[in-house]
């Protein structure tokens, strides 16, 4: 029996900040919109995010609730617990195959977000070892503590932001340490590289990093001096010991995490022999960073480009969020890892592009798209959480490549 086709003007895959923002904007212009997400509730990773911003708290859950309410009022259909596994263009219509039947639409927006980069570590398959995002979701979305006392391995923007959330939520952390050196960890195991990451975060941190700021900046210019400046016992960041001269050697336990073996490292990230000791913890959060989750773009036949500043391989797209595949658009972290606020602005931009291409904006189409592009740039410039300093330049490079490839001679 052929499954029933459910037709709509626009299918959005992903009910996070980008997808929900795009849905409400497109519905506002009269399109019928279906948003599909395999997580049981809408909101995406915003559901677990919160941080302090100039004296007040930015709470992702609240923003998500507002967006969901807006969408419901506009008649947007949000289908959660539905997994998309295929996309095929048949007679100018996309057929989107899901665990709950097939939807069709002339236009599809992929707002699938990002996934975490796995960080293989000795003992990482033990129950109790999880990605840093899993610790965040368990704590802030499901209200279940990931354990009694944990350790974070890996120093990056995501790790620092979530460490703060866990500490506010009452989850005890033994500290944040470096991953073990080696080909898999790469630069993430180098103390010097991690200081650079932290300098990019100093605007988020209270006094300790700021106090150390000058010394750290000085040390960055002189490789090797770092290890003599950064205190071996670490510094406290929001009550969490941040240990840039300590690496995790292995995670230990028989059928669950019981401890982590830690050791001191030199400025090159090499273990100092004889410094190994055990830290008792019952969970470990691995923070390897994020990459764009883009398999569906590949299934749909979209070409990819490699841009390390934006998280790796991502679908080629224009500044208007179009891909080279007709009727296929992208927005949010699938286009490069940035904060939720940028993703929301990108969602609105994608909706403007889609509505303009669908002809429902009349003569205003181009103007609205250009306005939305300006808004993305404004939000990006003022974003508090910058995942990589090279983002604006990397984006300009992609859009130039697009113009040279697809708009030449037009």
């Amino acid at each position: 029996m052929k499954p029933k086709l459910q037709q709509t003007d626009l299918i959005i895959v992903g009910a996070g900040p980008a997808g929900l923002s795009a849905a409400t904007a497109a519905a506002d212009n009269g399109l019928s919109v279906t948003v599909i997400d395999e997580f049981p509730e809408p909101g995406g990773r915003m559901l677990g995010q919160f941080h302090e911003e100039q004296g007040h708290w930015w709470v992702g859950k609240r923003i998500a609730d507002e967006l969901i309410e807006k969408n419901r009022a506009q008649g947007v259909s949000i289908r959660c617990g539905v997994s998309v596994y295929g996309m095929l263009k048949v007679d100018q219509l996309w057929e989107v195959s899901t665990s709950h039947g097939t939807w069709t639409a002339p236009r599809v927006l992929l707002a699938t977000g990002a996934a975490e980069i796995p960080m293989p570590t000795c003992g990482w398959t033990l129950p109790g070892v999880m990605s840093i995002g899993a610790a965040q979701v368990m704590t802030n979305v499901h209200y279940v503590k990931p354990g009694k006392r944990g350790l974070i391995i890996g120093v990056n923007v995501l790790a620092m932001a979530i460490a703060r959330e866990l500490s506010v939520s009452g989850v005890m952390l033994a500290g944040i340490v470096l991953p073990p050196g080696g080909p898999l960890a790469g630069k993430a195991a180098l103390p010097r590289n991690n200081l650079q990451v932290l300098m990019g975060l100093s605007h988020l941190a209270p006094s300790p990093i700021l106090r150390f700021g000058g010394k750290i900046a000085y040390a960055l210019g002189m490789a090797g001096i770092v290890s003599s400046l950064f205190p071996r016992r670490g510094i406290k960041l929001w009550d969490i010991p941040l240990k840039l001269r300590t690496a995790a050697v292995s995670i230990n336990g028989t059928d669950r995490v019981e401890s982590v073996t830690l050791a001191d490292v030199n400025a090159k990230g090499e273990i100092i022999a004889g410094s190994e000791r055990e830290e008792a913890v019952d969970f470990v959060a691995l923070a390897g960073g994020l990459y764009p989750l883009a398999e569906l773009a590949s299934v749909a036949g979209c070409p990819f480009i490699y841009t390390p500043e934006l998280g790796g391989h991502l679908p080629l797209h224009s500044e208007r969020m179009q891909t080279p595949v007709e009727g296929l658009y992208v927005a949010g972290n699938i286009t490069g890892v940035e904060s939720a606020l940028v993703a929301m602005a990108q969602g609105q931009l994608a909706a403007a592009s889609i509505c303009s291409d669908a002809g429902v904006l009349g003569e205003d189409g181009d103007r609205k798209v250009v306005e939305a592009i300006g808004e993305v740039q404004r939000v990006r410039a003022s974003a508090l959480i910058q995942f990589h300093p090279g983002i604006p330049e990397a984006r300009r490079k992609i859009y130039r490549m697009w113009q040279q490839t697809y708009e030449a001679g037009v």
Partner: protein
Amino acid sequence: MKSNRDTVSFTFNGKPLTGYRGEPIAAALLAAGIRTLRKHEESGNPRGLYCAIGHCMECRLSVQGKGIVRSCLTPLEDGMTVLEGQQLANEITGRKLP
């Protein structure tokens, strides 16, 4: 916030437990102190949840009537019979199940 959630009963490997209706099975099990969700199909080593958002497939286990599911994405229902993922036989190495 998530106040006034219904408490439901379910079993894991035959053990009676309670959790909140609609929370992922993996969250209900973690709240009950259970971390091992499956035995690795090949090695039999214990495995738990890893990403908690459906990407990694580490938390798969079986729910009677549904088959093998990702426990981080599957909402808990009243009366569910949940079993941990099992080690499998391997015809190539000759390993048989106990």
